[in-house]
Structures are given as structure tokens and as C-alpha cells.
């Protein structure tokens, strides 16, 4: 079983709102002092793949990222988590390519790497949160897609995939090849790589390709906005003044707080 996991490096989404700025010319967030991290849902996807490999044994996991040169860090971490191989397609064009562009690039890279049974992606990224790359990649490759998946098991020659819905879950039986978008779940919290593996990951081979290596329309890929374009970006002003409830004793405090709750609850 050959598994491809696509990973995106993003600006740390935990940056507090008070430190968050946008560049109104480039129409994206300023990095400031924030770190670049792997999108959490991509790590959930990698963890899901690793656990599947642990169970079935004979699986290989390839990590793939499309991003700037710094995205090498995301792939080194994937290697440290024990992905088998890593490939970076360098984005030297639009720094926020639309999801269709990303899907075209990932599809070309997946074909060039060749022969995948399963392709896993995060359900969405913590920066732009479009939630489209997985579905569009499935269409580019002409394979089915199951979204918001949380676990994969084998069932004879088929796979059993459990995915979350608004109201619970659904279990699918499916045949590879298949694209899955992965959501967070208590069983796919990403593992912390061992220090030894982090050290080793720096020395492991890592394939780097440019857009031109993929045989796609490089100009369109570098433009990155034929599908959609961000035309405005702003930080909404939401001023709320918190009234801190106080009291001389815990009882007084609880009473004042409960009264406020009851006031609103009663009006509902």
C-alpha cells in the first residue's frame, strides 16, 4: 500500500489576536515574530497514515508539500515522525495560490511520484481555511474522495473509513485509489518525534522539484489566481468591554454572576 500525505506549512495559528497584523498590499498576514508550523490537520493526516502503516505493516508513506523553501522544515518534521520519503515542490510564485492551483500542482507531483493507493490531506488549513484542496485533487486525479475522515482500517481487499458528520459519524467501505481529507480526533493527535529521529531527519534525502519539473502550465501555477483571488483583507474591529464581576466572598461573587446569567437566560 502506497500512501501519499500532503502537508502545508502555515503561519502559527496560535498567534494571539493582539500580535496579528495584515499586510494590506500583499493581502496576507505579516509573519512578525510568529513561527511557521505544519498545519495541524496535515499532521493529523500524517498521524492517521502512520497508525495505518503500523497496523498493516507493508505500507510506504511519502510526504509531499507545495510551498516556499521554508516548507522543508515541515517535511523534515514529517521524516522525523517517520514518513518514508519527502518531496518539496518549491513555490516561487504567488504566496497564497488558490486551492485549484495547489490541487493541479499536487496532482502533477503525485503522478510523477507515481502509484499511490491512498492520498491523505488535512481537511483545511489554519491560515486561509479554504477546505477545498482535497476535493479538487480527487477531481484532478479522477478518484473518489471521502472528507472529514478520522480513521482507516482494512477490511479484506477493501478499506473501512470512519468520518465525522455534523451529527455523528459514517463508516465507508471503499476501494483504492482514494483521496481522504482528515479531521482531528482523539486517536490521531500527532505524535512527538523522538530527538534521535529529529536529528536523523536533517540528514535524510529530500527531493526538491520546481514547477517546471512537473510538466504543467508553469505560468498559470505561478500566477495562482485563475480560480479565485483575494481582493481585500482586513482585521474586523470587534470591541467588547468585559465587565468583570466581583464580590467580597465566593458566595457574593457566585450570586452576582448567577444573577447575570439568569437575566439573559430568562429573556431567551
Amino acid at each position, binding site marked *: 500500500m502506497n500512501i501519499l500525505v500532503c502537508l502545508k506549512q502555515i503561519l502559527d495559528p496560535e498567534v494571539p489576536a493582539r500580535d496579528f497584523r495584515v499586510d494590506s498590499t500583499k493581502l496576507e498576514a505579516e509573519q512578525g515574530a510568529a513561527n511557521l508550523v505544519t498545519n495541524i490537520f496535515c499532521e493529523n493526516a500524517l498521524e492517521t497514515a502512520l497508525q495505518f502503516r503500523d497496523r498493516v505493516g507493508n505500507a510506504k508513506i511519502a510526504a509531499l508539500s507545495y510551498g516556499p523553501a521554508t516548507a522543508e522544515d515541515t517535511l523534515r518534521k514529517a521524516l522525523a515522525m517517520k514518513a518514508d520519503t519527502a518531496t518539496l515542490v518549491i513555490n516561487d510564485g504567488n504566496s497564497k495560490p488558490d486551492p485549484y492551483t495547489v490541487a493541479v500542482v499536487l496532482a502533477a507531483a503525485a503522478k510523477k511520484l507515481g502509484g499511490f493507493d491512498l492520498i491523505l490531506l488535512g481537511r483545511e488549513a489554519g491560515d486561509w481555511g479554504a477546505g477545498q484542496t482535497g*476535493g479538487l485533487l480527487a477531481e484532478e486525479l479522477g478518484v473518489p474522495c*471521502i472528507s472529514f475522515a478520522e480513521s482507516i482500517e482494512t477490511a479484506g481487499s477493501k478499506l473501512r473509513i470512519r468520518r465525522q458528520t455534523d451529527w455523528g459519524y459514517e463508516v465507508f467501505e471503499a476501494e483504492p485509489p482514494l483521496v481522504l481529507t482528515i479531521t482531528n480526533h482523539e486517536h490521531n493527535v500527532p505524535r512527538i518525534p523522538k530527538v534521535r529521529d529529529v536529528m536523523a531527519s536533517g540528514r535524510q534525502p529530500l527531493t526538491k522539484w520546481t514547477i517546471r519539473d512537473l510538466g504543467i502550465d508553469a505560468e498559470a501555477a505561478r500566477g495562482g489566481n485563475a480560480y479565485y483571488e483575494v481582493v481585500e483583507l482586513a482585521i474586523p474591529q470587534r470591541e467588547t468591554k468585559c465587565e468583570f464581576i466581583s464580590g467580597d466572598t465566593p458566595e457574593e461573587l457566585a450570586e452576582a454572576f448567577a444573577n447575570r446569567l439568569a437575566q439573559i*437566560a430568562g429573556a431567551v
Partner: protein
Amino acid sequence: MNDIVMCLFTSDGFDKSAQGLTGAARRLAEQNGAQLRAILLGAGAGELASELARFVDKVVVAEQPEIAEYSPETCLNALAQLTKDARVVLLSNDSYSQEIAPRLAHRLHGSAVGDGVGVDMHNGVVRVTRQVYGGKAEALIELKRSPAVVWLRSRSFEPALARAVAGEIIPAAVDIKPDTRTRIVERKREDSGTARLEDARIIVAGGRGIGGPEPFSQELQSLADLLGAQMAATRAACDAGWVPATWQVGQTGKKVAPELYLAIAISGASQHLAGISEAKNIAAINTDAEAPIFKHCRFGVVADYRKLLPLIRERLGALCT
């Protein structure tokens, strides 16, 4: 026939989400002198059609046995046929619609964008407003291809007004080819109660600081019972396995809009705040006065919930009697 088309899965009936979607679609159609066609997919579409017909020009009923129950590949095939002449396709932000919308756009050679809180059209170009960076910023996105396929945070939109003359109801003319490469073999509901969290008027929510599953099922639940509230949680609490994943509120999770959201031991990570930006009143109990949640609160208290909740429940109990 270049219509505005709205697609609705029938599983939730004509709920607040469906009503908001209808309202958004109606306004977009009127502003652009377009006809509004609704496609109803799934079992029970026939019954729902007469209700929906009061708001739209045409209802297309797609309830063939092959698509009576949702399956992504088969429903996508059917929907791609039914929307092929659309100018704009609008969907809600339920999991089925989110799953299908980007792929539908691809099949129609159009563009998709999701989780919209505003949508309009100028000179034929569709623009959508949506939150990005975990709710810390708002972006306006221009769709470059036609049709525009947009899934909306539909509960945020005002419902439509009923019209004097009901729209026409017609059966869907669609050639359904069942696709068995993926097949749903089990469906399980894990709803916390009878009502949906998205429609709850009062929500009691807990975060990582709650510390385990028991306080959720005991301390918080009994407070929720007193307030007539539903329960919710942050991603951290769901990932810890303390509560079901269906309780998760945030950028990826439920987007809620209650009159009162009581955040207990929730620090207020932006991805959580993105799910409660439409709450009318947010109140918090947290031991850390610097917790970001307080920046979004109408009122709050700096305290340990373990000490405070029993006293609050006592007072609420006294007020109720």
C-alpha cells in the same frame, strides 16, 4: 437558463440553515433579476418541496432511490447534471455540502469558495466575504470562473419572505449512475440532545481547563440543565476524548449563534473564537484574567470553576423556585 440555484439536502428539513440559505439565494436572485431554482436532494424531497416553493421560482425534486440516502460520488454526479446551466450555485455549510461543493465547481469548470458570510455579484462577478486566519481577519474573495459555487454560513442569513404565488415543483430529470467505489455501510447519530447545537439559545461550553470527562458530565451538565442550555466544547477537550467530536465548536466544528455562550475554563484560542463570533452574549469563567476569551466577553469572572460552579448552581436553583 442562467439561474441562481440553491442545493439543499433534505436530511435536516426546512431548518434555520435551510431558511438562511433560501434567504441569501432569494436576495441574490432579486438583486440580479435572476430566477431562483432550488434543488432538493434526498428522501422526503417531495414533502419539503411544497414548503420551499413558497420562496422560490422552481423546485426540482431529486429523490430517486439511488440518491435517497447521501453518498458523495453518486450525489455529486446527479448534482453536476442538475446544475450544469447555473450561474451561481449556493449551498449550506453542513458536512455534505462542504464535501461536495469544491468537486461540483471542478466538474462545472467553475470556482468555489466556502463558509461565506456575505455574497454579492457585480457585473457578473461573484464576491464572497469570509473569515480567514482562524477568524482573526476577514477576506473578500473574487471568483474567476463561472459558475460560482458558494457554500454559506447559512444560519447567519435572514430568511426569505414567502411570496404570494408558489413556485412550480418538478421532478428532477437526471440520469443517475450509482458509483460503488465508496459505499456508506453505517450511519450513527451522536447528537447531544434533540435540538442542534447551531440552533441552541444557550450554550455551556468547556475547554482544556475542565481537566477530564467527569466534570463535563456532572458539574457542567447540571449547570446546563438549570439554564436549559446545550453543551459544547473546544477542540482540545474533544481531542482529549472527554466529550464527543460533535460537541466541537470553532473554525472546524460548529459555528454557533446563541443568546448566551458561557465559556468555562476556555482560554479563547482564535480557532475556537471563530465558531462563536455570532454569539449575542459571551460570558466566561477562567482563572487567568489575561485569557483572550475575556476580550470577547460581555461579562466574566476570574475564578476556579470547581469552586464557583456549585455556588452558582445553588443560586440559580434558588432563582428558579
